[in-house]
């Protein structure tokens, strides 16, 4: 089996439904196609280059950010606006098709995840996989997230940052 698409924590494997492996290019296509994308940024990338890249990606496509854990502080200090939610809170809202979304314009159709604790993220993605058919999920961590609809593969830091840079680049 391809080492890159074994869930990073191998036992989060949950059943027959597995995420699609994506490159920055496919990720970009997904974002472009989305009507109301949302980025969820977790505390695992507080004060890191990945956080900077994540915020660039949101700028590029004008995607609102939800920060989880205490990522809000680190983002704010970096001058990046975000709305703070608990990870389980935002997932809970996302699964309600009638939720108005962070901008009040309706629920989101694509949610990008980055920097969330792996196993907790996996659980949140499982919730969305099962209960939010109206939301597509895409993970931008350096870990393969089998519970997402689409995920980057397992990577080392270097390759990962390149992936993010590619996605953030304005061409």
């Amino acid at each position, binding site marked *: 089996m391809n080492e890159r698409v074994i869930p990073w924590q191998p036992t989060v494997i949950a059943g027959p439904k597995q995420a699609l492996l994506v490159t920055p290019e496919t990720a970009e296509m997904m974002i472009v196609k989305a009507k109301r994308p949302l980025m969820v940024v977790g505390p695992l990338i507080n004060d890191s280059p990945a956080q900077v890249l994540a915020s660039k990606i949101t700028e590029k496509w004008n995607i609102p950010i939800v920060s989880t854990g205490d990522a809000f502080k680190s983002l704010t200090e970096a001058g990046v606006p975000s709305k703070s939610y608990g990870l389980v809170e935002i997932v809970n809202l996302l699964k309600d098709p009638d939720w108005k979304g962070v901008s009040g314009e309706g629920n989101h159709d694509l949610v990008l995840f980055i920097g969330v604790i792996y196993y907790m993220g996996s659980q949140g993605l499982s919730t969305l996989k*099962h*209960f939010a058919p109206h939301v597509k999920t895409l993970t931008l961590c350096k870990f393969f997230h089998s519970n997402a609809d689409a995920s980057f593969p397992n990577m080392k830091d270097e390759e990962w940052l390149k992936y993010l840079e590619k996605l953030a680049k304005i061409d």
Partner: protein
Amino acid sequence: MILENKSKAKELKDDFWKSKKITVTTGKITDETQENSTESMGPTLKPSVTDLREWDMKLLERYTPFYAPFCDMCCLCTYGKCDLTGGKKGACGIDIEAQQARFVLLACCIGSAAHSGHARHLLEYLIEQKGEDFPIDMGTNIDIEAPIMRVVMGKRPKTLGDLKDALDYLEEQMVHLLSACHTGQEGKSIDFESKALHAGLMDNLGKEIGDLAQIAALNMPKGGDAPLVELGMGTIDKEKPVVLCIGHNVAPGAGIVDYLEDQELEDDVEVCGICCAALDITRYNPGAKVVGPISKQLKFIRSGVADVVVVDEQCVRTDVLEEARKNKACVIATTDKICLGLPDLTDEDADKIVKQLVNDEIEGALILDPDKVGEVATRVALKISKDREALKKLPDLQEIQEMAKECNQCGWCVRVCPNNHPMMEAVTSAAEGDFSKFQELYENDVCYTCGRCEQECEVDLPLISMLTKVSEHYTKDEKFNVRAGRGPVQDVEIRKVGAPIVLGDIPGVIAFVGCTNYPEGGEDVAKMAEEFLERNYIVVTSGCGAMSIGEYRDQEGNTLYERYRGDFDAKGLVNVGSCVSNAHIPGACIKIANIFAKKPLEGNFEEIADYILNRVGACGVAWGAYSQKAAAIATGINRWGIPVVVGPHGTKYRRLFLGRTDQPEKWKINDLRAGEVIDGEPAPEHLLYAAENREEATVVIAKLCIRPNDTSKGRQIKLNHYLDLHKKYFGTLPDDVVKFVRTEKDIPITYKKEVLKLLEEVGWEPKALPQEPSLMKFREEKASDKGDSK
């Protein structure tokens, strides 16, 4: 709401305190009727599985279950596995939501059974020792000795024998609940949840029975002050023979302590414990030592220090025999729960067992008699400890460095670690002679030695042994302390703090309980406790959490137990005791409702829970919850209306109870005194919440102490802490503060300007404070309902 129709009083046939069950057991006919007359009984005495369903539905409507499936499939019957993705139903018709709820019910049943099985055996043992008539006397400061039993059973237990009826009732309920997990039974998630809540209540009841029995019969502290006891691997004298007890049942440990006393060997043998058994042995005899929480298990066994390992029940590594045999320690199993394939020598002569164990004729022994365990364990330890001395010695660091060089940096140790701790980094640094990363993993149980990395290692490095041995070299002084479990909160204490808690002057009661599946080690728990102690909250603790708190020292080198008193009052750090002692936490809340608010207890579950939900600013925190017991405890606590915060691993329980602040209709409450439905605030906002890290948790906990009933003064105090902590950890004031300000008087002085600005932005309008906030029906409704059903 589909469930408004049932509020009848239980029929008399269920009222077992009446004539039917009067027994001549002990020669006397106890007449309970005088004291607990039926007139004063509430509607839900000995509630059946469905009797509290209406209350559950109220909770579940507001705190909708949130499911995070841990597996997409179900594998519970031979029709399966069934794939439940994409809205597909299994072959039995179940959908993923109900399946998750079923699994939660199953976990709660298992957890609850663990406590009740424990209580049943303990009670049997204590009755055998002390007799059925042995009085349950909690001392002069406690009249309500068993608040949960009072509510559920409508009874005050006067003797050990009286506790049996409650266990009978509980066991019957448990079988019904477990039955519902069978394929083709319950079909709706909310009904599974209602049953899980019932299992949680049974858990709470079982724990109360267990702890009450042992406090009374073994004369453990009765809510008064308790001494500090030694904690930490460094407190164990390796020169002496060492007997280690692991588990939860105090009986074998007590057997050992008694034997030592009888034989005047107290100074010759070290008795120590891991997990709750440790805490309970020190409640019985403060001379015993606590090695630490569950996370110390494999470390301590690997250290080779224990000569004899006595295991009783719950939270014992299932490979304890294999691990102990690796360094020639002897294992004695002592309950039916853990037999390990060992020969049952209960009826064998002690001399013979000792001989067989010492000569390695048997792998270990199952001895179901705690007194015999005491003798055998001690005598074996005395005999083999000399020969085992070499095993307790530290290996050369050089040797470990050499081993570490074999690592091929595959990284799998990190991937399989539940917390992805940097084990590989520790190994590769050690290969270069830098052992500090190992030590970082070791301290505060950041690595809780679950052993998964070691199991996975491709080059078979004994990672846990390496970790343990490295750290023994560097961690010279692993000596801490913990206050011995003090048991229940006394009525006198409640009299003092009842009003300030209900009014909000004491900003909250926060209970750090449970296990050590922490994402970043035990320090996080200690720091949270410290934060709230400094802020005048009452901090309660128990079990492994209490030990984790004891393993933390401030810059002056003091533990929190040294810095804070043990009374149930603002700035008190109250260790109630072991897992079963957790019963005293809802117990204290119940007492507030009774002593301060004069709510009758007997058969009055819903009113009491409603009172707690709306008025008692308590919050449980199970930061490292891992077990089915923890699931049952939390769910039971929730049913009483007390919110609980778990750590990120808690999402693997598959279900949380989350509120929706964007749906104001969910927060409407009945002001019973005013007779009006009013807009409430989201207080408490969630009933079971998983936070991602300590920073988030701290802020959430502060918020979850807010209650509709807070006076303006109380609300000010609570909001002040909430805003402070939000500012500290998030850098700003929280947007949602506006939801919690009813009148300007609610605003904390320090933040007045900023908050007013926020209020203005949202077009805030003041509103009246509720006089008697509640989810119960208005009194007239209830009356007419009753008329209806006749």
